[in-house]
């Protein structure tokens, strides 16, 4: 046994005796250590880990949700596209149909117009031909009277002469008609 210079109550022994006091001390130190770690590290760390777990779960859920949303949107767009394509086809078909109808109408009208114009033109021509024929008749009658009066120097009744020429012209008209 040696006495210690700095700590007078301390005895240095050669490993003898059991130091039960240390059991209390060790247990005390361990429990204090546990409490300190709980206060300064364990609680914040556990909270953080829990927060992270929640965040990951949330992220997964929201990712799932946005994926579904995107899918819905894509489907909507596709539907809209198909619908507009259908609409376009319908519009084109309608336009084609109405154009067909219109063109038919125009052609019909034009044909009718042409027909009526042709008819009236024919009528005009006929009328003019008749007029011209009548004028010619008169002119020919007068001319022939003048010629006859000059040639035969004979007084002739214009009316008798006219009757003669009429009969002649009628004969011409009949030949013409044939």
């Amino acid at each position, binding site marked *: 046994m040696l006495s210690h210079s700095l700590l007078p109550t301390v005895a240095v022994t050669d490993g003898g005796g059991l130091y039960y006091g240390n059991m209390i001390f060790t247990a005390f130190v*361990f429990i204090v250590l*546990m409490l300190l770690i709980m206060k300064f590290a364990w609680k914040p760390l556990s909270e*953080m880990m829990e927060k992270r777990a929640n965040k990951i779960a949330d992220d997964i859920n929201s990712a799932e949700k946005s994926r579904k949303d995107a899918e819905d949107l894509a489907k909507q767009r596709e539907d809209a596209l198909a619908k507009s394509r259908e609409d376009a086809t319908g519009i084109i078909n309608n336009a084609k149909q109405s154009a067909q109808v219109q063109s038919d109408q125009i052609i019909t009208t034009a044909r009718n117009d042409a027909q009526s114009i042709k008819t009236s033109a024919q009528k005009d021509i006929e009328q003019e031909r008749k007029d011209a024929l009548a004028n010619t008749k008169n002119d020919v009658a007068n001319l022939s009277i003048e010629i006859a009066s000059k040639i035969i120097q004979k007084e002739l009744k214009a009316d008798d002469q006219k009757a003669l020429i009429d009969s002649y012209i009628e004969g011409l008209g009949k030949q013409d008609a044939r």
Partner: protein
Amino acid sequence: MNDPISTFKLFGLTFNIGNMVAVTVAAVFTFLLVFICSRKLQVIPSGKQNFLEMIVDFTNGIVKGSISGSEASSFGLYAFVLFLFIFISNQMGLLFQIDYNGVTYVKSPTADPIVALTLAALSLSLAHFLGVSKLGFKGYFVGSYFKPFKLLFPLNVFEELANFLTLGLRLYGNIFAGELLLGMVTKLAFSMGALSFIPSIFIAMIWDAFSIFIGSVQAFVFVTLTFVYISQKLQPEE
């Protein structure tokens, strides 16, 4: 075994100063490590926080290996502190040993049977306490001592004692042996000058590596067995 120790007496109990210093230093190291690593915690961990969470996951894994269900989460702290404290204690003696007046003041606290047995006593007290509080005293007593039938009562009492001794002494024995051999290698190094010093460096390196391995394994084994004992007390066998 016969190294001198410094002691003092208080309230009729003997205290070993070197031991107390070692335990305190190990506790301070443990606390500082955890404290420094747990600063500026972030949701997305990085660096030291990753390291800390790795240890927490590891010890939580040990707990979940023995105890199932919601009870497991309440033991996380105990497993974490126990593992880290024993691990650091085991490695401490390999890093440095401080002698003063021939008395070793800083070494592995777990190389001392009293410290190792105290930790074992803590673990087993916790196990028995939890057993009583969960199953009631009768359920605990029948479940622990009258299984599978009453005649085995003396054997079961003995088993509890053996659990306590093996848990503590296994840790103590492994770490003490590691330190003892390391001390012997050191003595060998200085015994014959350069002739023994250079090969001793390599021997010491090999033994250090092995002791680090042993220290880690023992910390793991201690925590694992603690939770095996706790789970035994929590669920009585039919």
